[in-house]
């Protein structure tokens, strides 16, 4: 089953936004593109596909945004609170300024920072490096396909991509459809005798585990 993973792109410059959008569309992502923070928030709320992007790219400086009713900080806070597992790259011309970095960290403690002065190509290279991940005997190819390396078989669902991108973190899924897709991916891993297994943490939370004969137990104070 195919379901292209989504990428949220917030960039106030129309030309740069087009460029980023085209890049991700070429790679078979479904770009959720916005020129203003309020539009980005609305896409996260009302996106009819899934509203859970596997990656968010946020321009911190929104001086050219057509609507200034919300800020990039508002989008980052929403992502931090409701889409914690979604990796976020924030870029700015002033990324070296400690007050900018502090504001970004307050909005989203996990946001990755990128210097806009390095150019779009450098940003896209970084994104590609993040998305082309290898976990055990699985590899993400082109950001949209999980490949089982020994057999070269492919799995195309975005929820599978999300699990691989976020390994070793636990990922929450928010619909029965997503959870079913995750279980199907778990069966696919078993059928392929992959070194990677799907671990359920209950309440629609899952993570991938690479089997190295290790156990996992509690030391007692977090039950």
């Amino acid at each position: 089953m195919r379901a292209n993973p989504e990428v949220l792109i917030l960039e106030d410059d129309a030309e740069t936004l087009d460029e980023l959008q085209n890049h991700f569309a070429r790679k078979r992502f479904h770009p959720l593109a916005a020129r203003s923070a309020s539009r980005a928030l609305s896409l996260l709320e009302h996106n009819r596909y899934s509203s859970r992007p596997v990656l968010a790219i946020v321009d911190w400086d929104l001086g050219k945004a057509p609507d200034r009713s919300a800020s990039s900080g508002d989008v980052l806070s929403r992502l931090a609170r409701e889409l914690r597992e979604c990796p976020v790259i924030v870029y700015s011309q002033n990324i070296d300024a400690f007050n900018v970095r502090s504001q970004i960290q307050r909005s989203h403690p996990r946001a990755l920072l990128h210097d806009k002065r390095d150019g779009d190509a450098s940003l896209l290279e970084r994104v590609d490096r993040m998305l082309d991940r290898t976990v055990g005997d699985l590899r993400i190819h082109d950001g949209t396909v999980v490949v089982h390396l020994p057999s070269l078989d492919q799995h195309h669902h975005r929820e599978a991509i999300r699990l691989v991108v976020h390994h070793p973190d636990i990922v929450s899924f928010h619909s029965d459809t997503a959870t079913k897709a995750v279980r199907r991916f778990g069966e696919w891993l078993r059928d392929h005798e992959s070194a990677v297994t799907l671990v359920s943490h209950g309440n629609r939370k899952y993570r991938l585990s690479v089997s190295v004969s290790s156990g996992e137990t509690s030391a007692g104070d977090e039950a």
Partner: protein
Amino acid sequence: MGSSARRNDARWSLGVLAPERCRSIVVITADGELAVAVRDTVPTRIAVIRDARPDDALEVAAACLPWPWMVVGATESLTPAMATMLRTRPVLTLWLGPAPAGVPAHALSFARPAALLAAVDSACRANVGGMRLAPGSGVELGDGTLLRGATLDALVGAHPGGFALPSRTFRTVALALARHGAAWTPERDGARVALVPCVREVVRA
């Protein structure tokens, strides 16, 4: 403050106040500069840096579940509630400049930022006889077993130092380590409890 009022409060919507179970370092400063420096020091997979201001430090700390792994500060005072949290939980406490009144006896203070950052880095890379902090949370034992628990995380990060807390705080960690045959156990050494080699195991061997 009620939950509906909180939802309308812009400050409450900040991501730094979002609850999370992953290992966290709360940095309390007036301007955030030290938090930026700490973030540059700490490997991203080891801990999330939470940039707090003196007036929201307690709320930020409360969002770190079950409690922060480390609190770094550069303020002259601390709210009584925050001081109580630091005195009753095994939280690594590091201060730039003189530590304010109310911090626990195991708090470390540093005159220079570089020395403080070196101590933060050292805690993140702690290796106690093969036990190391795992990405996100938990401690990886020498045999690859992952033990999850904020108290064990704290003991490993604080090694060879420890915590001025009652021994009972560490009982479950002692049991878990013994169950997995680890060669280390939390033990009182003077006023503090720290990880020490498990003498009993050595004698048996």
